[in-house]
């Protein structure tokens, strides 16, 4: 159970850690599947953006953090919330706008904030979390703490000026920030290659002297290894790192997006790289757990999430008289 394992081309991680990461990825996958069903049945107000396919980047990065560390997420952020420890019932209730939601139904999917677990929030603005994470790192430094802050953003945010401004500041002030680009190939409906120049994405961090690398974001072990290095580097006071995780959004930009802009062949190829298949294979190949036990873990995740749906759906709505609460502190 405790033996280190290696898979082809991947980094080695502790067997128990891989098992725990696999379980979290399963919970995210089936949380998202439950949300997809709820959205398709009309129970989710507005548009909802799912992260199925990107579980390895969510989980591999956050597994390298301590509970006290911070994250800032983006509009496809349910997986980050779960990996950071959010209660799934409260998260689901928030996504449905219920009174028992983590933000009382005020935020919805795109602005879930969970300060108890250092989650500065999912964010409805492209790149919005980047300066927040850099700010949290600045605050950590000011209070003499070595807390680390991770900001997640998509490939769309690579072309936001704020990213480059924040990388510069994080580098000159040696802030404990890990910049994590989850490159899923599309910013909304636009392919990355159509809007993103230059031969090297890591080069965008390297110009600031920031250690930068591009990794396989479908391999949770590779993601964890890169995160471990970056988090240790930040915690030791050396400053920021930049990790680009190449991954894939199994769904569209939002539930209901027909994805006419995607190539079927490309989709099939990425499906074969499903991060859950890969970690399940690594677990059984290394003899960490049996295939039956892995299947049981998946069943448990399915049951856990499906069991929540009806209760959350029938939960009470926020009372209208609370409308003006929390406008000011």
């Amino acid at each position: 159970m405790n033996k280190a394992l290696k898979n082809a081309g991947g980094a080695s991680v502790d067997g128990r850690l891989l098992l725990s990461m696999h379980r979290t990825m399963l919970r995210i996958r089936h949380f998202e599947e439950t949300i997809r069903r709820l959205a398709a049945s009309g129970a989710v107000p507005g548009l909802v953006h799912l992260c199925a396919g990107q579980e390895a980047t969510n989980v591999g990065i956050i597994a390298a953090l301590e509970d006290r560390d911070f994250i800032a997420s983006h509009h496809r952020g349910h997986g980050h919330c779960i990996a950071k420890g959010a209660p799934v019932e409260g998260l689901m209730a928030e996504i449905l706008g219920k009174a028992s939601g983590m933000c009382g139904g005020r935020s919805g999917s795109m602005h879930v904030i969970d300060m108890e677990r250092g989650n500065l929030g999912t964010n409805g603005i492209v790149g919005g979390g980047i300066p927040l994470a850099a700010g949290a790192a600045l605050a950590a430094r000011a209070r003499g703490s070595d807390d680390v802050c991770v900001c997640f953003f998509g490939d769309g945010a690579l072309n936001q000026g704020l990213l480059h401004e924040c990388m510069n500041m994080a580098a000159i002030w040696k802030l404990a920030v890990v910049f994590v680009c989850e490159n899923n190939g599309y910013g909304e409906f636009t392919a990355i290659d159509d809007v993103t120049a230059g031969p090297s994405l890591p080069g965008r961090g390297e110009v600031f002297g920031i250690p930068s690398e591009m990794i396989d974001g479908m391999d949770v072990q590779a993601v964890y290894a890169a995160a471990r290095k970056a988090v240790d580097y930040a915690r030791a006071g050396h400053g920021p790192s930049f990790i680009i995780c190449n991954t894939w959004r199994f769904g569209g930009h939002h539930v209901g997006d027909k994805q006419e802009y995607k190539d079927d062949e490309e989709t099939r190829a990425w499906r074969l790289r499903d991060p859950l298949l890969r970690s399940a294979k690594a677990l059984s190949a290394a003899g960490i757990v049996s295939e039956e036990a892995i299947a049981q873990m998946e069943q448990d995740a399915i049951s856990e999430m499906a069991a929540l749906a009806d209760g959350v759906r029938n939960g009470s709505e926020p009372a209208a008289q609370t409308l003006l609460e929390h406008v000011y502190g």
Partner: protein
Amino acid sequence: MPQMNLAEALIDGLIWSLRADPRATIIGRGIAGHGPEHAAEDRLKQEFGSRIIDPPTSEAAVAQLGTGAAMAGARPFVHYGTAVFAYEAWNQFINEAANIHYMSNGQLSAPVTFHLFHGIRGGGGPQHSGSPYAMYANNPGLEIVLPTSPRDAKGLMRSAMASNNPTIVIQNAQLLGLTEDVPAEDYSIPFGKAVVKRDGRDVSVIACSRSVIDALEAADILEKEGLSVEVVDIRTLAPLDVDTIVASVEKTGRMVAVDETYEICGVASELIASVVTRAFSALKTQPVRVGRPMTPVPFSPPLEAAVNPGTQKIVDACRRACKR
């Protein structure tokens, strides 16, 4: 006369603008939204594909590129899918585009059109439901256009693209499906001309954007109670047609100002100020203001409904103005 929905009419106005002026270009995609009306954009792509570019998510830069291009002789149309995304470009709208003509002592113009979808749209939450046009109106140098019907959308878009000033065409996304007969030929509707959408005797509802549609619905309801409601659509917030507004209030003697921006320093406040400072004595009762209460727009549907200045709030306001 062909029928068009509002999205198709906006696109038609844009097509006529591109036909009329080879300097006109399009920056952005999803101009007809991503809802059921999105296919309206296809006509534009077919006829003018080479004059359309799909930019990265770089809102501030795109606004300033559009402004710079306009200063250098182009006539760009810059699209932001959701109005709040243009908050990233606040400086570019306000401090650059709006000031250029004045700062250059008239040497330069910035004939750029910014196109935005605003408003409470159902589950947009605090960061996707913004209606920033009152904030834009607080800055000289910008023209602000708020179409509420397909005919107006086409003619106003045509004027926006022909204007020498930076112009914001800001459209409530929920109106894109409204359908009516629209002239097939090229035409323009001038800025600064409000329109009386419904004649009435007892109270004037002065409104813009989504609130015009809600006000017309409220007028139907109140008619059954024997109240005759006049509805005025200002159509452009800058320039504002105060003459038409005042004429309506002088006729009815009562005023309800309604709009989706915030009550404090919002459009409804300005509409009331424009009447009381010019025609105070025409008012038989105190004017009533309907806007968003001062809270971020909550995600929860019942809380969102409580924020929205919809039909029922307009009905109640008219009753108050008429002391019913």
